[in-house]
């Protein structure tokens, strides 16, 4: 259906690293692919506020409370930047929220795991944000202009998030015996979910090849995952923590760490909605949305009233 010449020109632009802007011609599949990826990314930021919010009211010091509050706020901001970027593709925020609530849109499965201790707040910052940052840094080079600009801004703001988490874990691992155990336990529970954040292996990923060709994604799931593992092991080891993988070791030949096979049954099970938190996270978001409906309606009614007044005047 789509004009072959246009498609060729489009690919040439992509190959020449010229960004695509909202009004430019683009293949429908490219648009759909972006809508899916950016909104999924936005939903992840928004749902990701919840596991951390779970400890905000129990943050154990004024300093940690301020930092965590600012961090969760940043996540709201990042979700917002991304929704706005996705809207340039012709889908409204109302629609994105509807898809989320209907279960038609996905978000990162890692947020369906519960935060059970304060150390989990450290683990989320260190590992979950650490993994997200590897992905986000790569996505700054994505071919769609609004997405790329949002990622640049997000990366700039995210830089404190991982340090915040690592600092918590570092403090705990220097603390009492109980605190050390708390840090180790959090690492044990969050390590594999953080590794799964990069998604299926390259061969099994439904959208990967086309996304790479169109430079929606710049590097493959496995490349990014490996980079994350390689940079994280040292950070854990200098704190005296052990990674929950007996096969983890540096491969002298490749210079990279080898890891055990990933438990994809668990991954798909959580993606399909059976994680410990899927229902809770979604229900919380829907409730907030529904509870806020009358406020949004009031704001619209007030605006309409004012507009009507200014027309008469």
């Amino acid at each position, binding site marked *: 259906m789509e004009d072959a010449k246009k498609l060729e020109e489009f690919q040439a632009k992509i190959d020449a690293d010229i960004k695509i802007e909202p009004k430019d011609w683009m293949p429908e599949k490219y648009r759909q692919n972006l809508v899916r990826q950016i909104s999924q990314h936005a939903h992840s930021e928004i749902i990701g506020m919840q596991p951390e919010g779970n400890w*905000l009211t129990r943050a154990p010091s004024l300093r940690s*409370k301020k930092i965590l509050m600012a961090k969760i706020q940043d996540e709201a901001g990042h979700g917002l930047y991304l929704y706005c970027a996705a809207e340039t593709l012709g889908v409204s925020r109302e629609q994105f929220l509807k898809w989320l609530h209907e279960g038609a849109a996905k978000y990162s499965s890692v947020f369906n795991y519960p935060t059970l201790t*304060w150390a989990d707040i450290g683990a989320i910052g260190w590992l979950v944000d650490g993994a997200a940052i590897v992905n986000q840094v790569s996505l700054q080079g994505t071919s769609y202009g609004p997405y790329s600009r949002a990622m640049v801004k997000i990366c700039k703001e995210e830089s404190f998030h991982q340090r915040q988490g690592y600092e918590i874990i570092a403090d705990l691992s220097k603390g009492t015996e109980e605190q050390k155990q708390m840090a180790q336990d959090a690492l044990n529970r969050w390590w594999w979910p953080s590794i799964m954040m990069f998604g299926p292996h390259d061969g099994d990923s439904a959208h990967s090849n086309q996304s790479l060709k169109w430079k929606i994604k710049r590097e493959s799931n496995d490349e990014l995952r490996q980079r994350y593992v390689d940079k994280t092991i040292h950070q854990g080891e200098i704190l005296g923590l052990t990674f929950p993988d007996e096969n983890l070791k540096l491969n002298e030949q490749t210079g990279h760490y080898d890891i055990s096979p990933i438990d994809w049954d668990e991954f798909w099970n959580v993606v399909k909605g059976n994680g410990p938190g899927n229902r809770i996270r979604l229900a919380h978001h829907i409730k907030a949305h529904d509870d806020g409906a009358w406020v949004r309606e009031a*704001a619209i009614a*007030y605006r309409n009233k004012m507009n009507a007044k200014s027309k008469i005047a």
Partner: protein
Amino acid sequence: MNTNLYTYCLRLADNGLILSHRIAEYCSAGPQLEEDLAITNVGLDLLGQAESFLKYAAEIKGGGITEDDLAYKRKEKDFLCVHLTEIPNFDYAYIMARQFLMDAFNFYLYSKLVNSKDDIIAGISAKAIKEVTYHLSRSSDWIVRLGQGTQESHQRIQTAFDELWMFTDELFESDEIEKSLEKEGIGVDSSTLKKDWQMKINEVFSLAGINVPKIEKHSLQYGKFGLHTEYLGYLLAEMQHIPLLYPDAKW
């Protein structure tokens, strides 16, 4: 130790600490993403103010105690926040009504405290007045929108003010501590703020089409003297959970 000054700092600190905690509870539950962010800014400002006053209080008390000790290891009866800050987030109307009543109070309070002869109080207040000026402008905007919005929003915001009004009395209840600090030019006698506060409330209520509730003096006990609502105990149980569970650990 200057007991009057210590008590006074705790009153200032605890209002910010407890109100910011209520805002923290609301995180990720706002009516719109933009509002979630905006109200968090208010919470962060209030928490910052609380931290500064607690730090000063800890310094006055001496003996190596810290602002965290004061926030996390004091007992309920030693907290000196007003009842209004303790009210739960029943709905967005309560949240905004509570905020507006406190913002207006804070605005007139810090407008005076910037001139305190105590350099530290004056310094904290100079920063705080900028913050609360914005808070008041923001919450006023919302009160007008909710009051003039739909029938439902009008009903809800009027109800919230009707229910919360009885707690405003406490804001202007002063005692010997405040009176003597006012004489020294260090603190403010709260009762002197009522007139300006009431005028501001009337102004915004009239824009919003909200009736000023008619309730006279209500309360037999006040948070600022250490007697609280039943809500505070639960709030503190949550807030102080970790330090109480692990008394020997540092966080």
